[in-house]
């Protein structure tokens, strides 16, 4: 491993120096140490999606016969699995529930974490850094240790089996994350702008709504899309708190409703997974720059 890292490291270091130093870095070498491993990575990372797509469009005859058909290709594509999924199961309903839950949870956590991040980063009250630390620590509490007590709470509050339970519990992991992201974002906005506005007689709320928030829009978008993706992907709470078939979210419903008996309907399962992944993937493709920039911490001008 270490040798591989070292050799992979090489072209980058040389690429930053003058071109004549690169002469020894031949094309063939670059292919072997860079493009070949990269191609392997991309193929392995994308293969499950390719396989998912291929399976969901294959007729059953082809699906279980590798001898006569090449499994990597589709001889006669069919929409049977998708048709079955959309019209013979409650799939559209599950999609709608998931969407509602994700949007509401995102909105709720974005609202509360924007206010919290602003207060921690800009109002700088006494002990604000400890509150910030506490919120950061809250992110380190995983859902796996909270779901049992939350299940009893949800039951006592009478929210069991209702999407509201999910909308209220998802912020437990969304708020710490968004707050943390937004604190970093607010930090990058020059404080002088707010001071100028204070001198001009703006109130604190006016500063927040008219100066800080418009400048923080990219940060808000990043936080929003991350929250949406995380809510869409959430599984354990949805599995524990939702019982009835019609108010399940997509990930839970596919696993509990479509997997029935001993014979797995792989075509339908893959079609369900594909359709369940698509909204997030499309959403992601629109905002990919925001994802990457919030991961790479781009600095706001």
């Amino acid at each position, binding site marked *: *491993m270490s040798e591989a*890292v070292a*050799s992979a*490291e090489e*072209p*980058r270091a040389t*690429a*930053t120096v003058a071109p004549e130093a690169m002469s020894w870095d031949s094309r063939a070498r670059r292919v072997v140490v860079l493009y070949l491993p*990269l191609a392997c990575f*991309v193929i392995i*990372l*994308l293969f499950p999606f390719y*396989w998912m797509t291929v399976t969901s469009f294959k007729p059953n005859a082809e699906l279980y016969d*590798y001898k006569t058909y090449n499994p990597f290709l589709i001889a006669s594509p069919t929409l049977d699995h998708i048709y079955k999924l959309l019209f013979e199961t409650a799939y559209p309903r599950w999609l709608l529930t998931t969407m509602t839950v994700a949007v509401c949870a995102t909105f709720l956590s974005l609202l*509360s974490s924007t*206010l*919290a991040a602003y*207060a*921690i980063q800009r*109002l700088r*009250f006494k002990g604000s850094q400890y509150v910030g630390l506490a919120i950061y*620590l809250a992110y*380190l*509490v*995983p*859902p*796996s*240790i*909270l*779901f*049992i*007590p939350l299940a*009893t709470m949800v039951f006592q509050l009478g929210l069991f089996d209702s999407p509201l339970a999910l909308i209220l*519990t998802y912020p*437990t*992991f969304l*708020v710490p994350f968004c707050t943390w992201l937004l604190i*970093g974002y607010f930090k990058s906005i020059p404080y002088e702008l707010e001071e*100028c*506005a204070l001198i001009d007689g703006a*109130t604190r709320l006016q500063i927040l709504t008219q*100066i800080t928030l418009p*400048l923080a829009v990219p940060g808000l978008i990043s936080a929003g899309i991350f929250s949406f993706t*995380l809510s869409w*992907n959430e*599984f354990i709470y949805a599995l524990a708190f939702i019982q009835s078939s019609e108010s399940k979210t*997509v990930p839970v419903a*596919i696993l509990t409703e479509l997997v029935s008996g001993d014979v797995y309907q*792989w075509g339908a399962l893959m079609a*369900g*997974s594909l359709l369940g*992944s698509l909204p997030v*993937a499309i959403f992601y493709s629109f905002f*990919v*720059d925001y994802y*990457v920039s*919030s*991961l*790479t*911490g781009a600095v706001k001008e």
Partner: protein
Amino acid sequence: MSVTTAPGWNPVRQQPNWLVRLFDWKPFLVFMCMLPAVGLLLVFLTYPLGLGIWLAFTDTTIGRSGRWVGIENFEFLFEDPLFWQAVFYSVFYTGVATVGKFGLGLWLALLLNNHLPFKSLLRAIILLPWIVPTVLSAIAFWWIYDPQFSIISYVLVDRLGWLDHYIDFLGSAWPARWSLIAANIWRGIPFVAITLLAGLQTISPSLYEAALLDGSTPWQRFRYITFPLLLPILAIVMTFSIIFTFTDFQLVYAITRGGPVNSTHLMATLAFQRGIPGGQLGEGAAIAVAMVPFLVFATLFSYFALARRKWQQGEGND
């Protein structure tokens, strides 16, 4: 920015009404701003955390509030071979998957840090496994690991002829354990690679130039420049990765549900199985609480890494 406020500027300062003044009073404003976030977290995070610890010392079942039973749940668990197996597999799963994710993720980050065509497209594609819901990609892995129609077996047996029989990925304990680890590594690589790439890009190229002039080998440049400068971000990403791998639930639940013969139970899946379908909330909570020491250890690790050097930019999550 001042341009937008200039037209509305009034030389005679109006006396704002009481509501505006209340919101301009800092303690009140701080309180109002912190209320939603702190309220949500206290009610749905801190309280359940305490409740969970309390439940671990009771014999609560679904539909019946429990009695205090002291450490009976823990005593029971300590004699339960299944629990110890879950602890073992959780540690093993976390250890192996973390090494795999970080080894491969670092390698991928170093590859991506080169001058490449279509770099942003490549980054977008690589992040895809991390965006897609874990359960859904886990179902795809489940199908890939199918005993009869596994595409991996097909390639190895029918195409390449390296093996003479199909692999039974999920049918027996160790193959199932390794298959789950492979799926976890697959899902974790993009996150590690993209966050470490962000760290790599903050390293100044002049350091490499200086090292190159001094006649350093590539390994020396990695060991003495890249690695030390990457260490702060590496420590944080690793803490997150360890915590979320250790408490992983979705992947195992979707692919094996703890089987075959309970050999792939993680502590989280065992807690779920005992707690929700099994109805033994107290016992499930005790298993969940048993995860806490490991998490505290990981958090302290993170805290000291942070104290040594503030993190420079936001990372993602798992």
